[in-house]
């Protein structure tokens, strides 16, 4: 689902709050390739773990956020590629910010989806969490500075931020008027 500019702006602000919190607990606030699992575990004051063949209610899922009251947990699929895992953890963190009481089970087809190619098949909560994840992993302020310094090259920038190239392309597109 394609998000409206107003909704994207709201999600950007939520992600900026999350980035501020992450930077408080991180020794290098400008680190672009931070280790997402321990950083997010600190942020949710819970646990972030990999599990092989992750399932929920008999269905394969890429990630799982379990609010669980005092001890929230995020699970991600152990057999997915590392960059995909990184995005999934940030996506689940998005759920914890955007819909903290609900327990989402993220179908692999619903995570890290190009809103323009999903033909409306992506749940709005999932597209919100995707936009949050991209904004959290690729902070707008850093990306703007990097595009100025290195030029616009999605493959190079994706490597710089340890995200997939399609994720970086989408992020550049969202920030296009500003970068």
């Amino acid at each position, binding site marked *: 689902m394609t998000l409206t500019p107003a909704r994207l702006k709201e999600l950007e602000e939520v992600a900026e709050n999350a980035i501020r919190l992450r930077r408080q607990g991180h020794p290098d606030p400008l680190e672009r390739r931070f280790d997402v699992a321990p950083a997010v575990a600190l942020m949710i004051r819970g646990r972030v773990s990999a599990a*092989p*063949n992750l399932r929920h209610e008999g269905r*394969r899922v890429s990630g799982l956020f379990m609010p669980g009251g005092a001890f929230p947990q995020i699970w991600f699929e*152990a*057999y*997915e*590629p590392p*960059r995909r895992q990184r995005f999934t953890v940030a996506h689940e963190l998005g759920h914890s910010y955007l819909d903290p009481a609900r327990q989402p089970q993220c179908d*692999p087809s619903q995570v890290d989806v190009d809103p323009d190619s999903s033909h409306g098949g992506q749940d709005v909560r999932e597209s919100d969490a995707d936009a949050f994840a991209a904004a959290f992993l690729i902070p707008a302020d850093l990306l703007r500075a990097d595009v100025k*310094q*290195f*030029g*616009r*090259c*999605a*493959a*190079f920038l*994706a*490597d*710089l931020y*340890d995200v997939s*190239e399609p994720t970086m392309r989408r992020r550049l597109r969202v920030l296009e008027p500003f970068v």
Partner: protein
Amino acid sequence: MRIIHTADTHLGNAAFGLSRLLEDPSRPGIIVRQRQLDIQKGFAAAIDAAIKARAELLIHSGDLFDSSRPPAFALNFAMSEIRRLTSTGASVVVVEGNHSYPRDPALGHALQILAHLERVYVAYDEPRVFELLGMKVHAYPHRAVSRGVWPKPGQTGGGLNLLIAHGVADGQLFFRGDRPAPEIRVSEVANDFLYVALGHYHRLAQVPQTGNAFYAGATAMVTWGDFHAGGRFGVILIDPASDEPVTRVDIPTRTMRAYGVDDATGLNRREVLTLLAEQERQFGAVDANCRIAVEGLDPLVRRELSVRDVEEIFRAAAAIQISLRAREQRWEAVQAGLTEAGQLGDRFAELVGQLDADASFKNDVQVLGDSFLEQAAEQLSDLDAEEAAR
């Protein structure tokens, strides 16, 4: 029981392209491309991983060799590495892939030679079942699979079973790669096996809808089609008794780095080179396989920008692939551009102004161009006069 799964080694691949040349350390006086050596090192690293894991079995899911008639040095290398592992007591099973089967069966199969080694089991032409470590290892070679030979659900009859094959799992385009291979119906039989070891797709990946079917991926960048910036190659460790029965084991492989400019519209030669140099300073190209892609160059800038300029920035790379592409210019766009810019002379002066050159050179170009434009205008004027007279 510990098993290492590897695939798609492609020993003997010529690794064409811009690559550092060096002497093969194991063959004094023989000059080879860096990427050829990387392919060999990848296989040696897979063997190291098996020895380190104290694996009892190594399974190779096809394309150990890049062709059906591998060079003698590749055959020799494969045999010496396999012997290094089998001397620890481990067994090895190798299946034929789509690269390594002889189109003419009369030529014989390179894998036949490997089968002379102790504890080495090979499958080519027809499916084979090897009884090893208390389980049945079902090996489906390329030639059999391409004829449609494939296990039926429930065919194994219970017990511990392992399936090895080379092909495109469930016909998914994703796993096809750049060379055709038969489709194999993995998900309908995966539950009959402890593990399904696949080859053909050069990255480590799990087959969707299965819990136990994996591509191990290649052990080095075989072609530029395998390039993925920041990516790694590895093998899979299978340990059914472990909490995580399938684990990726990264092997030391060459770093892959991507550089470039997605849209170089409006940038001159110097600006493009400055951006590339800045990128190289951030992520050093030293000893890396580097892909540099600059898109949307103004045609004039493209003519000025040489591949050598770019090579110079990335001279420390092990191998590079450079693509410098000018923006597509259609005649209508050129005409529109000329009209937008006003008179042809003005447009020419503007283009000369964008040249990345010193003032005297620009002046020479301007003078020369002006004289050509003047001549052209005169000729057009004469033609117009002739036309009018007619």
